[in-house]
């Protein structure tokens, strides 16, 4: 069987710190799908007190709260294993806070700029806009073959790509930042996103993309298991929910636009109308 000689090693980085949003599930999905494709796979869970082995095939890092996020960047910088692994050609799946700490800098509630690991060309800043929370729908870069990517975003930080391309175009939700409709980061080695869910559980095509990029790996057709039909059902439901969010927000935006137009009109009427002098005295 193709690739049967190789055991795929999936390193789950700091689940004790960056395990708040279920993103550890991405490592499990990679390992289970590798087996469903006829390969062998194992997960190395690397706690924040452990050294990060630099010889795994895929590194998975997830989201977390401000305090643990800061502890994670301190530990990962001191360790250096993640940087060595990426230089060595390993694959990386990074979500939310995990994506933020890999960039040049990120923001927490206590500090507008904390130095990141500098491994991805992106920077994350504070914003006065509301926290982005809800279903996120992304049209993935065509090179991925993943089509629609569904997830759940929950972040305050606003991420700007300094170079390179995003994972895809945002169809519903916010994604990287309010100013442009894109989510995440994509390169030959990296899939990064604001999508929890977890990302690879909701979007198995991305899991297969990552597995297929590992040197020496060929994926056999998926073993048929009855529950797999549920993934498709779940995807349709979540895609519909994300589109509903988008419609709601469009209506709110239109209503907001109409309200401010009405306010401008009313203001203009007041300033030109005969009662304007009296009203300003009130």
């Amino acid at each position, binding site marked *: 069987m193709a690739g049967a000689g190789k055991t795929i090693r999936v390193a789950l980085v700091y689940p004790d710190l960056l395990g*708040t949003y279920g993103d550890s599930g991405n490592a499990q999905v990679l390992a289970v799908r590798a087996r469903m494709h006829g390969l062998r796979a194992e997960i190395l869970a690397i706690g924040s007190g452990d050294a990060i082995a630099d010889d795994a095939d895929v590194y998975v890092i997830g989201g977390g709260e401000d*305090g643990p996020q800061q502890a994670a960047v301190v*530990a990962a910088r001191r360790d250096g294993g993640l940087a060595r692994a990426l230089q060595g050609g390993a694959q990386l799946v990074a979500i939310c806070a995990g994506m933020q700490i890999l960039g040049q800098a990120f923001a927490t509630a206590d500090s507008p700029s904390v130095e990141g690991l500098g491994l991805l060309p992106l920077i994350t800043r504070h914003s006065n806009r509301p926290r982005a*929370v809800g279903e996120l729908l992304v049209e993935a870069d065509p090179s991925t073959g993943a089509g629609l990517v569904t997830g759940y975003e*929950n972040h305050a930080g606003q991420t700007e790509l300094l170079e390179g391309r995003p994972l895809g175009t945002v169809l519903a939700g916010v994604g990287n930042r309010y100013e442009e409709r894109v989510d995440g980061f994509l390169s030959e080695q990296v899939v990064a996103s604001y999508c929890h869910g*977890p990302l690879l559980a909701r979007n198995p095509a991305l899991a297969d993309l990552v597995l297929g990029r590992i040197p020496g790996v060929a994926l056999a057709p998926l073993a048929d298991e009855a*529950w797999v039909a*549920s993934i498709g059902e779940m995807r349709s439901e979540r895609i519909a929910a994300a589109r509903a969010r988008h419609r709601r927000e469009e209506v709110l935006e239109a209503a907001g636009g109409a309200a401010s137009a009405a306010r401008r009109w009313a203001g203009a009427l007041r300033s030109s109308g005969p009662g304007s002098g009296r009203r300003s005295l009130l």
Partner: protein
Amino acid sequence: MPIASLDTFRARGSARFRAGLVLARGAGWLSRAAGTGTGTALAGRVLQAVSPDCLSEAATGLECVLVSATNGKTTTTAMVAAALGTGYQVVSNSLGNNMTAGIAEALSHRGGATHAAIEVDEAHLPLVMESTRPVAVVLMNLSRDQLDRVSEVRKVADRWREAIAAHPECTVVANVADPMVAYAVENADRLVAVELPPGWRLDATVCPRCDTPLAFTETTFACPNCGFASPGAPWHLRAGVLAGPGGLAVTLSTALPGAFNLANAAMAVVLAAALGLDPQSAADAISAIAEVKGRFARTRVGEREVTLLMAKNPAGWQATVAMLAGDRRPVVLSINAEIADGKDTSWLYDVDFTPLASRQVIACGRRRHDLSTRLGYDGVAHLCMDDEMEAIAACHGAEVVFVGNYTAFQGMRKRIARGHG
């Protein structure tokens, strides 16, 4: 229940408060009559609107004990009420309204009670302490609940900490094996520390003081940076025996399943002891509790006896799955993601469902496809069905366990109450 029972008119307090009660109960009655629910939530809102100080008025003259935690607060409140009942007349917010106005409405039914056992939502603890001036608070655990809400666990711990500092006269019975709770009660003047067996720790992996990763042993934790550590405790729960100061040993047993219910019982017994009651009598009273607001209830559905369990968050699910690992009964799991549940189901991947493999499992609920996908990746063979009652009927054997998250559980209770409609 009549629109306004006699105790409405006997209730103590200002005219405004009593007027509020009459209106609130009228609203509650209308809501019940209209079939929209038990009416307690509406009654609470009306009371709060008419009488903003309702909770301090309702608590006047009562010795209040507040119970708060992410998990187990409803059950522990029932246990505290039973424990206090060995020495006093007790009123409790047993219908489950754990925010300000709901508590006030519940306390107004006090009758001849001298003591109150009050379940309090974690976020509302400071406010409820301010209004009720409790003799004691019982604090068990803090972990994440709904992911899509702003609920950083440490923010809650900080608010608890401030509230405790503001009430130095209050006795604080606390599970200091939970780092977040230990942090919240660190400066309590009247601390009665309890060490429960360790539970969910994934939300307290860094030091609440300085964000350095904590070092854990089986029962203790310590921060290698700032020295924050388990404070040690005069009360310990080990293997069903609660050991206390001076060689005291209380044997705990509960009719309720699960190791977590022994832990809840331990907290209630320590509270009783701290208030001068006999701990063994308290433990005996607690052991008789068979269900709490439908949770743990055994009920007939068609041919089958169904045990109803609720689990709201990863910590609760993990404890429930561990409990179920002890038998082979078929399980029906039901997951919704309404606002009350949290809209993000990612947490399913923080629960290890593998102990449920090799038994019959059926996934239900409005998010059954999320659950089914999760179970699939965990290698748990299962069916996916859209109707819980049909799922129960499809189970093999005479006994079935139903586990639902918040709205899934409430929906199931309603259907059973209506006669399986």
